[in-house]
């Protein structure tokens, strides 16, 4: 299989792209639409020929400085990527290309959730995200910055498991009454034990070190019912990365989340207590499964005063997040403005009630 894959329109030979709105592959040149299945890999026919005369580089080679170079199938221009890029555009001819070797074989994702929201939706969401907040520096409302938002298929590990747990809570129940002389408080202590099971379906965790985990968790949840078996044709026109964090490194985080949810779910079955704190808990995972999937995320990185600010939108649900910096000047203007008006109104009320 060729290492660099671009998808050509069977009709006009132009480079095609995945269209989020229509959920089809669309040729921007002749307008023809194709089902993704048209481009599905046919492993037997597309197995690489073994006719090379020399055991040579397969088109991907690594520089001393760590950059990976590909040659664009369309224009012959050089495409430089980093180690994990799985899909990008040729910087010379803008042709969408997929580094097929990075999403095949061992590295082939099991599932992909195709982009549902296109760039315009992402730009609109970013505009709304910023404009609804008054204390943001003006530079963040700059249209040119907004234009730079990119759709990326981010690699995720997805976990299935049934958790079996035994949890002991320490609980209290408080009763209060009084007679003519005293107020009484009676605190009763209980040991509450709950055992049982809770099943989890497709808990995702970001497998790319490039996207911070707090951001990828903030745009959750992803709805797995939209996921389809992976076809690299979905990547055409978007950026994509392959995973660079092994699933084993993500397990502690997944375990934390599972444990917390189990404790919370079991706690909800203990009713009538004033306080309920976990004293001991033991969780065993049964039938754990890990799969590899690409999830759609719109991302914009912006630098401001030496710090990088990342905005991300769930490309499936449209949930938009991104911490914004505080404009101190705006803070003071709003503080003084609101305080001034509130004080003036309060003084006026005070004076009116005093003199009338």
């Amino acid at each position, binding site marked *: 299989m060729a290492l660099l894959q671009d998808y050509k329109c069977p009709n006009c030979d132009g480079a095609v792209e995945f269209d989020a709105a229509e959920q089809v592959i669309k040729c921007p040149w002749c307008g023809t639409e194709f089902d993704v299945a048209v481009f599905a890999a046919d492993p037997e026919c597309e197995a690489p020929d073994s006719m090379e005369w020399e055991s040579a580089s397969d088109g991907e080679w690594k520089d001393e400085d760590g950059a990976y170079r590909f040659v664009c199938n369309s224009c012959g221009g050089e495409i430089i990527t980093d180690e994990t890029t799985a899909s990008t555009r040729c910087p010379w001819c803008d042709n969408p290309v997929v580094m097929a070797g990075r999403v095949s074989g061992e590295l082939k994702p099991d599932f992909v959730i195709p982009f549902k929201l296109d760039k315009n939706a992402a730009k609109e969401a970013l505009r709304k995200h910023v404009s609804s907040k*008054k204390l943001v520096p003006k530079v963040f409302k700059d249209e040119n910055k907004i234009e730079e938002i990119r759709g990326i298929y981010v690699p995720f590990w997805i976990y299935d498991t049934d958790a079996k747990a035994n949890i002991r809570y320490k609980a209290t129940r408080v009763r209060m009454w009084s007679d003519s002389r005293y*107020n009484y408080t009676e605190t009763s*202590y*209980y040991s509450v034990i709950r*055992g*049982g*099971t809770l099943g989890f379906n497709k808990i995702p965790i970001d497998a790319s070190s490039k996207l911070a985990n707090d951001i990828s*968790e903030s745009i959750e949840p992803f709805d797995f019912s939209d996921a389809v078996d992976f076809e690299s044709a979905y990547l055409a026109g978007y950026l994509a990365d392959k995973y660079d964090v092994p699933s084993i490194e993500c397990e502690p985080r997944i375990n934390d*989340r599972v444990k917390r949810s189990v404790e919370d779910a*079991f706690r909800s079955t203990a009713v009538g207590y004033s306080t309920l704190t976990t004293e001991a808990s033991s969780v065993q995972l049964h039938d754990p499964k890990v799969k590899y999937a690409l999830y759609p995320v719109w991302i914009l990185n912006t630098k401001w005063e030496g710090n990088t600010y990342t905005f991300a939108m769930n490309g499936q649900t449209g949930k938009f997040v991104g911490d914004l910096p505080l404009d101190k000047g705006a803070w003071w203007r709003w503080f003084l403005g609101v305080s001034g008006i509130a004080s003036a109104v309060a003084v006026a009320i005070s004076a009116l009630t005093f003199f009338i």
Partner: protein
Amino acid sequence: MKKIIIFFIVILALSVTASAEYLYDNEGLLTQSEAEEIETLLEKAVEKADMPIIIVTSDSYGYDIKSFAEECVRKYNDAALLVASDANDEWYLHTVGRADDIYDIDALLEQILPYRQSGDYYTAFKTFAKECHEGAKLPLMRILIPIILGLVIGLITVSIMKSSLKTVRYKSGAEDYVKSGSLNITASHDRFLWKNITRVRRQNNNSSGGRSGSPSRGSGRKF
């Protein structure tokens, strides 16, 4: 009986000079023109303070000057009153309601009494009228507390606005991915361990009905 007597004395004291509204010079301590001038000054003060500011001079006040003063302003919620009884060598300042907040009667007395001692009743009354005019402002607390309240409202507003800047947070659990209906509790024991009872003595706040009407204060000197 005592009340009735005071009532009649007050009626008499406040009805001598029919033309006056705020100055009742029963003792005749002022000349006609002086009295007119003081009346004008009192009217100005009354207009600014929006409550009666009264001077009464009287050679008799019944049992004691305090009861007399209270009776004079009984019908007002807010009022400032100076009772001067030259015949009895006693002056008395009385404030009710809002006047009690605005005027510091001890300081006011300190300002007036030196003139009285030198027999300059005109300047003494003029000082009273002028000080009542000057002092007829919102008390400082009535301005400070609303400003502090405004600052707190401002601070809460910008804090809410600031907190909206942060949208990136770790998820605490994985409740979004729980298989629906998969919660299956197989063991459930609630065991009582122990209990303790604490008791606190109740506070007896048998308040005796409280005082009705406006707060009032008086201060006077006998010479």
